[in-house]
């Protein structure tokens, strides 16, 4: 198992290299010259070719591609993603706090999502075809189909405006988390609990369940065995859900004025703030790789067959 973890971690290194390279290339493929963007942002009235060349030299754009890449990569490793083209501030001073805020929201949401998905999935699988199973599936279908901005709007109107129980926006206390977390969780739980449910159901018909029962094992023990085998699918999905959430909270963030990544990234993309976009894409990609590796490890801990191959 120890060796498996070491191997998995080593494998992420080349993957991360490729990702960083692609991130760098993508920005360089953009049709607009970065120097022009900077000059426009600084409000320079007349942009001459001379000025552009001068700015290019200042930004280090005149150097060969690969050298620029390595310089950028080395800097990135020290969390120095350069300065924003628009505000001139270091990227990390803007992105760092926003990233932390989004991470907090994401982690709280994912804990709620995982907890609820497993609980609902197990209950529905054990009571398959029953009233509870049918109603949970029905309601979840309805809620998942609702776009999150609509749900967010409705919930803000009811809980914050009408009942005046929760803050409408911002990030002040734990109470600020309730609405955004609920809105995010609702749209994901509806999908994920079905994954847990269906894999529980397919395991329920396995022979080992029958043999366990035939040997007189109590239902609780059997359910734990089933859960352990069912979770393997779910864990891979949950592992991918964290980075997906990190990158897709933008709607919820803007509705609840959450000072997070989503709002910042959209702003940067619209103003072609390349260093910001690069850093944002890189951070998300790294998050993807890390959480995916983590879920692989969890799965290996659960499933002995996975530990061998690699």
């Amino acid at each position, binding site marked *: 198992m120890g060796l498996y973890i070491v191997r998995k971690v080593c494998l992420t290194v080349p993957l991360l290299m490729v990702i960083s390279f692609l991130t760098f290339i993508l920005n360089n493929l953009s049709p607009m010259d970065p120097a022009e963007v900077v000059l426009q942002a600084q409000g320079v009235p007349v942009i001459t070719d001379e000025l552009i060349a001068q700015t290019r030299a200042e930004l280090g754009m005149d150097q060969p591609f690969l050298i620029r890449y390595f310089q950028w990569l080395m800097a990135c490793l020290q969390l120095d993603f350069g300065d924003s083209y628009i505000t001139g501030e270091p990227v990390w001073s803007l992105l760092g706090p926003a990233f932390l805020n989004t991470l907090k929201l994401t982690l709280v949401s994912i804990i709620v999502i995982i907890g609820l998905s497993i609980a609902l999935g197990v209950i529905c699988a054990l009571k398959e075809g029953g009233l509870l199973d049918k109603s949970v599936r029905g309601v979840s279908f309805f809620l998942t189909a609702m776009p999150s901005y609509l749900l967010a709007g409705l919930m803000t109107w009811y809980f914050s405006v009408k009942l005046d129980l929760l803050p409408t926006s911002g990030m002040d206390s734990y109470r600020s988390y309730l609405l955004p977390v609920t809105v995010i969780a609702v749209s994901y739980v509806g999908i994920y609990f079905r994954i847990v449910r269906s894999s529980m159901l397919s395991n329920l018909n396995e022979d080992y369940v029958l043999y366990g029962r035939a040997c*007189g094992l109590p239902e609780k023990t059997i359910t734990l065995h089933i859960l352990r085998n069912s979770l393997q699918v779910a864990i891979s999905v949950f592992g991918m859900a964290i980075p997906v959430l990190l990158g897709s909270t933008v709607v919820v963030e803007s509705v609840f004025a959450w000072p997070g990544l989503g709002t910042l990234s959209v702003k940067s993309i619209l103003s072609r703030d390349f260093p910001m976009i690069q850093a944002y894409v890189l951070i998300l990609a790294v998050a993807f790789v890390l959480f995916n590796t983590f879920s692989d490890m969890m799965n290996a801990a659960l499933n002995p067959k996975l530990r061998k191959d690699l």
Partner: protein
Amino acid sequence: MDHLLEVSNLKIWDSSTGKVIVPNSSFHVKQGSCLAIVGESGSGKSVTCKAVMKLNKAGIRQAGDILFKGENLSDLSEKDMRKKRGKQLCMILQNGMRAFDPSCVVGTHFLQMLAVHFDWSRDEMTTKLKHAMECVMLKEPLAVMNQYPHQLSGGMLQRLMIALAIVLEPDIIIADEPTTALDTISQYEVVEQFIRLRERMGCSMIFVSHDLGVVKKIADEVLVMKDGIIVEKGTTRAIFSGAQHEYTRYLVSTKLALSHHFEQIMGGVSVAER
């Protein structure tokens, strides 16, 4: 009373479709004897076995009396039934590969199971298991206990289930096609273990199979099922020499034709006849 298990008017049906799987069957197993249930796939053999254990899927209902040592299992609550399962009625499944939780070492399964039925310490359990595993010719029992199901062969897993039955010392063993999923050599070994198991413990057995060669070796009595109906029952000798029902004669004759063909190809004594 020499009938250990007496099943009368057992009816099994699928509640969702209303389809009757077994309309009305009655049979009994004598103390210490082995009853074989034979028949083609889908004839209701497995469902009948599971009905005795009350382990059919939720949608499948059953009615009728199942008298086990004078007690009607049909009237027992799920909780009381659970205490009987394993300890008194032990089941051995067809596919050893799938009968154990793939994520746990086989030892976990055994220890959990024994802990439910006995107040033994962990060491006691291990010693007994070790002894039982040696009985079924499994070498290095402790190493086997620490292996995952996918690391063991089908025949070994089948013998592990037999070993568990040896430790549990049930009154009746219900073996649901225990040799079907095995290759001929493992099949031979497993059947050998079944015969020795009966000699050692003198327990009764229901042996489901469609392999008449195996049935001939192990069973005292045979019950032939077709489409959920018991078409014939009798002693093994009677069934194999003078079957009354057309279907039984058909089964026996196909078996004979097969082994005859085999003899012709191989020349000399057929392996299947041994």
